[in-house]
């Protein structure tokens, strides 16, 4: 399993999760966990996904989701889980 954290931050609008999930399904990226909060109208979502069986290159997914975010007016980031693990776990 290769875990990646996808974060979506921005103004809340209809269909944010749907659009991101559609892209992930099309590229065989499995969603393991989703959590979200809304703070002062700002949508804040974190997904933990497994890219072990994904089709295509990792870098392409980073770019595609970033572009998708720009289209719907939110910031989408993909980062491998290790950077958070390293920083917050001993």
């Amino acid at each position, binding site marked *: 399993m290769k875990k990646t954290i996808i974060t979506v931050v921005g103004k809340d609008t209809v269909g944010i999760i749907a659009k991101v999930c559609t892209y992930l399904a099309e590229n065989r990226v499995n969603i393991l966990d989703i959590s979200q909060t809304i703070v002062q109208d700002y949508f804040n979502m974190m997904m933990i996904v497994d890219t072990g069986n994904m089709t295509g290159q990792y870098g392409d997914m980073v770019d595609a989701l970033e572009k998708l975010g720009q289209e719907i007016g939110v910031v989408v*980031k993909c980062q491998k889980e290790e950077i958070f693990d390293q920083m917050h776990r001993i």
Partner: protein
Amino acid sequence: MINIYEVAETNEMIEKENLDVRTITMGISLLDCIDADLKLLNEKIYQKIYESARDLVKTGEQISREYGIPIVNKRISVTPIALVGAAACKTIDDYAGIARTLDKVAHEVGVNFIGGYSALVSKGMTPADELLIRSIPLALSTTERVCSSVNLGSTKTGINMDAVKLMGEMVKETAEYTKEQDSLGCAKLVVFCNAPDDNPFMAGAFHGVTEADRIINVGVSGPGVVKTALEKVRGENFEVLCETIKKTAFKVTRVGQLVAQEASRMLGVPFGIVDLSLAPTPAIGDSVADILCEIGLEHAGAPGTTAALALLNDQVKKGGVMASSYVGGLSGAFIPVSEDQGMIDAVNAGALTLEKLEAMTCVCSVGLDMIAIPGDTKASTISGIIADEMAIGMVNQKTTAVRVIPVIGKGVGETVEFGGLLGYAPIMPVNRFSCDDFVNRGGRIPVPIHSFKN
């Protein structure tokens, strides 16, 4: 499992507080390139560096994209060229030719600096060492990306005062050779006492002879992250202050460790060290001076500065050491003037002088760094400044360095602009009294008594 708040904290550090990995530096040994034939030597150097580092920039960019962490610089350090060229170089131009080869290969593989145009002369100079030192002005004025460093002393050898005198002259000459660009050459030239073999930061990076054939060293940064963390503990006591710095340094260094391991794995080059430095940039909010202000000073340079810097430096190390399996290089807070907006402000406000900076170098890593001084400063005065700094390093068993820029044609009150990461600096006054007779004595200063530990 990682939670949403931890993810948000990390991304906040990256996006708003300038957390980045300052440099991935590949150290490459050129000892196996040594040849008495100068042409062959240059060819071998080019080939070895090109073969070793051609994927370095690409790999750095890939890691940056996968983890969402900026990796600002990709660089190379090589074996001190005085050693590599000793058998082949008979003239100053022979050595400068190697510098041009280094510059060419740096452009070819896309790194922004290549360090190691260096000589290690802490006790004595060979004819080759002296030739390389005398070629530095020519080398730095005819190349763009080559950095030069000279080790002039150590706790184990004392200080080579002949070399200190010579380097004062070479700093001045480098300034003259590059006067059209505000003496920019001097920004790429640093002298050391106790120079580390595995420093990933420029201008002082070189690949020491004690190192493996190739190695990956990583320098982390994050003054902005420390500053923001301290904003949340304003008015608290020193215990809380120190704990906060320590925890923050731990987190910052862990990122460096991760990047170092990934780069090492992807390039198939062993991981060397993580350098735990707080390295500022001219960007707003990326300043070590601002941390000192947050600790409670009106400006860097105010009474209390040395103590504040000492605790900052110590806590950064305490937090960072546990975060990385191998720590090395310079590891501490950097206090360059031109590369730190808070330091520039402090100089302009009249709070920070050369003498106070010298005191600060007793308790932090490196030394008098990126300080612009008047262009008419005498070579012997620069040698005197160097000797003082070397003495601090020698006696305190720490690395110290001098990177001053005598800006030809400019004086106190004027400003010099270097651009990019090198920033800009107000020209600072230098003590005008002479040290000629001291510098001209010749010979070396013996090792201090506390080096006799056997």
